[in-house]
């Protein structure tokens, strides 16, 4: 189960995977309403876009402190890189090239692009470390995680930071493995991009330093080349320490002035983040202590079980190989070193991604997206597991007496057959989850209905407004009003800019001002539904929509309207 030296064919496969992912995401993006946070980022991106327009027209004016601060103050609690990409995509791909059918897709495209890049990178890393079968399976398995698929559509930072985290880790791995100067510089640049994407990147230095320390311990135990490890580590960590902050600084104009104060405010926002409500096993958590089982249970409930089991298998297979190698080394035999670092790095990347979410003070309101940067590494281990299973299958096929079956031991047939069996459920679950990504749960908990009965969060972010636009377009009278509930205003407006929602329908902020009232279900939001009951004098929803017979969003209609 060793890796391969990558060739142009692997680059082609990675590019094809990325292209297919992007095509599928663009093809399905029109069904998906806009999440609350997307609305805030549209607003920020528009502010940044205006600054870029000024920059191209009058650079001198754009670099005036006042111009920078006015534009970049918006949403300065998050770094600027991804929102800059949203802005530039909207400016060039939409306003100049009119590339997309809907305005909103232009904001979402950078995230979609990075999702494709992430899947392609998973293939490359998997193939390089564990062989092409592992890489291919890992890439598909990542894309076929329903929550990853949902988030991959969005103009948010969660999938972008998955890719940036993966990229930085990959470059660091290459730097440690190959030395030289190219990969340390790449690691530094990638770390900077990750820093300017989302604060999840803060975990990267912890990951890298701990990894180096463990490699040095390993070298000491096995008689490895500690000097070489230390030299490579110094180059990689040094580049990350120097280039990372420089890249972040260069790409985030907000911190060009009052740098430390503004960075301090940014850090403080996330270190002291307020707590929002989140339902878990029938209880709404809104203040610490948060449930320590939240992350593992939600992972098991939302990632296909077969993928998780394959990850566990891959981990076991690799652990056994490493233990055997270590024992050989301790016995004075020459140990095959390759692989140990990779397994350790992947495992640590998973651990550090989940680490914060087993602490009782870490807010859980964002659901599974918080630890999503672990998912490529889970997928990579799953790829390793599948690669081993394909080897087993080939051995078993060779043992068969029937010669017509034995020939399947050679060539791609065995792998393809196993892929079909092991990916059928993840593909089916992912396809069926759209456009209800956050309502989707795996068969392990009984699907959407089982999760509703267990009291697992059914939706948040108000994005399912996109799933009821057809009803609104058909039923709301001309110039009629709709209470938008959890839909962010820019998200509502984007549905109208897209042409998905009639422009004459007016969104309002209170039930009593509206003819129709949306209700996105979360237990702590139920008071909104009761407001509609009293205001409209009815408890009968006019329209209910959701996933697999489970209500997620419903609409009340004022009597006589």
């Amino acid at each position, binding site marked *: 189960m060793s890796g391969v030296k990558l060739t142009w064919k692997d680059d082609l496969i990675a590019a094809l995977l990325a292209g297919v992912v992007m095509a599928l995401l663009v093809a399905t993006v029109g069904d998906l309403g806009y999440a609350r946070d997307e609305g805030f980022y549209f607003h920020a991106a528009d502010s940044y876009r205006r600054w870029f327009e000024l920059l191209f027209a009058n650079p001198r004016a754009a670099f005036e402190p006042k111009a920078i601060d006015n534009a970049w103050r918006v949403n300065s609690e998050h770094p600027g890189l991804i929102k800059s990409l949203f802005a530039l995509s909207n400016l060039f791909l939409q306003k100049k090239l009119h590339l997309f059918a809907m305005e909103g897709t232009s904001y979402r495209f950078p995230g979609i692009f990075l999702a494709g890049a992430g899947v392609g990178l998973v293939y490359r890393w998997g193939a390089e470390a564990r062989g092409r079968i592992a890489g291919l399976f890992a890439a598909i398995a990542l894309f076929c995680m329903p929550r990853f698929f949902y988030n991959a559509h969005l103009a948010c930072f969660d999938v972008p930071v998955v890719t940036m985290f993966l990229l930085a880790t990959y470059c660091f791995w290459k730097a440690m493995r190959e030395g030289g100067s190219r990969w340390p510089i790449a690691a530094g640049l990638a770390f900077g991009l990750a820093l300017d994407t989302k604060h999840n990147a803060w975990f990267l230095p912890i990951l890298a330093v701990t990894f180096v320390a463990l490699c040095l311990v390993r070298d000491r135990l096995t008689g490895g080349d500690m000097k070489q490890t230390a030299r490579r580590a110094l180059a990689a960590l040094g580049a990350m320490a120097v280039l990372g902050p420089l890249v972040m600084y260069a790409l985030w104009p907000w911190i060009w002035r009052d740098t430390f104060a503004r960075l301090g405010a940014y850090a403080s926002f996330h270190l002291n983040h307020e707590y929002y409500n989140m339902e878990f096993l029938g209880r709404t958590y809104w203040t610490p202590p948060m449930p320590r089982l939240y992350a593992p249970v939600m992972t098991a409930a939302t990632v296909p079980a*077969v993928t998780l089991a394959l990850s566990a*298998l891959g981990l076991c297979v690799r652990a056994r190989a490493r233990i055997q190698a270590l024992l050989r080394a301790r016995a004075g035999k020459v140990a095959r070193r390759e692989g140990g670092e990779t397994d350790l790095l992947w495992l640590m990347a998973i651990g550090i991604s989940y680490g914060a979410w087993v602490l009782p003070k870490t807010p859980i309101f964002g659901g599974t997206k918080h630890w999503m940067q672990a998912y490529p590494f889970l997928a990579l281990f799953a790829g390793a597991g599948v690669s081993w299973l394909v080897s087993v299958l080939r051995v078993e096929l060779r043992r068969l007496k029937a010669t017509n079956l034995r020939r399947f031991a050679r060539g791609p047939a065995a792998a393809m057959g196993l892929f079909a*069996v092991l990916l059928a459920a993840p593909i089916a679950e992912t396809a069926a989850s759209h456009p209800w990504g956050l309502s989707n749960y795996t068969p392990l908990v009984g699907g959407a209905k089982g999760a*509703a009965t267990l009291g697992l969060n059914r939706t948040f972010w108000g994005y399912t407004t996109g799933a009821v636009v057809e009803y609104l377009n058909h039923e709301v009278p001309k110039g009629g009003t709709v209470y938008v509930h959890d839909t962010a205003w820019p998200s509502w407006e984007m549905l109208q800019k897209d042409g998905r929602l009639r422009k004459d329908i007016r969104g309002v902020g*209170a039930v*009593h001002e509206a003819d129709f009232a949306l209700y996105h279900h979360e237990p*702590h939001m139920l008071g909104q539904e*009761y407001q509609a009951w009293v205001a409209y004098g009815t408890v009968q929803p006019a329209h*209910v929509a959701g996933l697999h*017979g489970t209500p997620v969003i419903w609409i009340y209609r004022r009597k006589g309207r």
Partner: protein
Amino acid sequence: MGLRVASGALRPKPLLGAFVALGIAELAGFFVSSRRGPDFADWAALVGPMAEERKQGELVVVAPSWAEPLARQALGDEVFPLRDVARPDVSRYRAALEISALGESAPELLGFRETGRREVGPFVIRRLENPSPAEVVFDFVDALGPTQADVRVTSPEAACMWNPNARVLAGGLGGHPTFPAARFECPGGTFFSIGPTVIADQDFRPRRCLFSHPPARGEVVTRFSGVPLGTVIRGHGGMYWIIERERKGAPVALAVRVDGEEIGRWEHRDGEGWAAFEMPLGAHAGKKSATVEFFVSSKNHAHRHFCFEADTR
């Protein structure tokens, strides 16, 4: 990649079989879990059978409770009147019809006896009888209105005027419950009006009650005249849970007087949620006509979105 497979502690062939089985099982599990009834369209099939089964005044409960919006959509307000959907509890109902899906049953009807059942597609309609229903003589929430009730504040003394066409006001995202069109309006603004609304309790369940925000000083008094009495006045009080979960607000006091005599005083503290009170009527029990007054006050009235319901039984 060579074909030699190191086994070690792993058993390759059984593992291969197990993973193939897991892949197939998860796929089968997906189809079963995503297609098991009822689907949205199935709920319409309940209209006829429920019309046949339900007797006037019978409570209808849906299990699992998350499916209730679908039943309400299909069956409407006649089967699900607001006063039943946002009930204080089930103690007053003689019988209930439970619409059960997915084999679930309603926990609040556990003490009821099953007296009949009928299967309708993926549903089971169960008739359940309450072994000891309470005989409600008078419901104060139902009776709020100018015919039998009046409202005043005490400091300074002022009457609250009945307005049958007041502006309906809902708090919006995270805001106050809806102030209904028909309500008593007290001095101090819209928060100081007495009218029936629905709040979300600590489990976010709907509770129909009289919104009764205490005034800055003194008390708000809701008086009912000509009230036939049972042996107790029983009720519940609470606030929209998001208001009281911080546990930072002052307690709210509710005192009840019958024909001028205080029969009980109850205090609601933040965190108690939708809490019950019961006050024996003593010598007043069984009166054909009495005056009952509810006094609501708080030492600090900030964010005291107090709401109560009561009956005599």
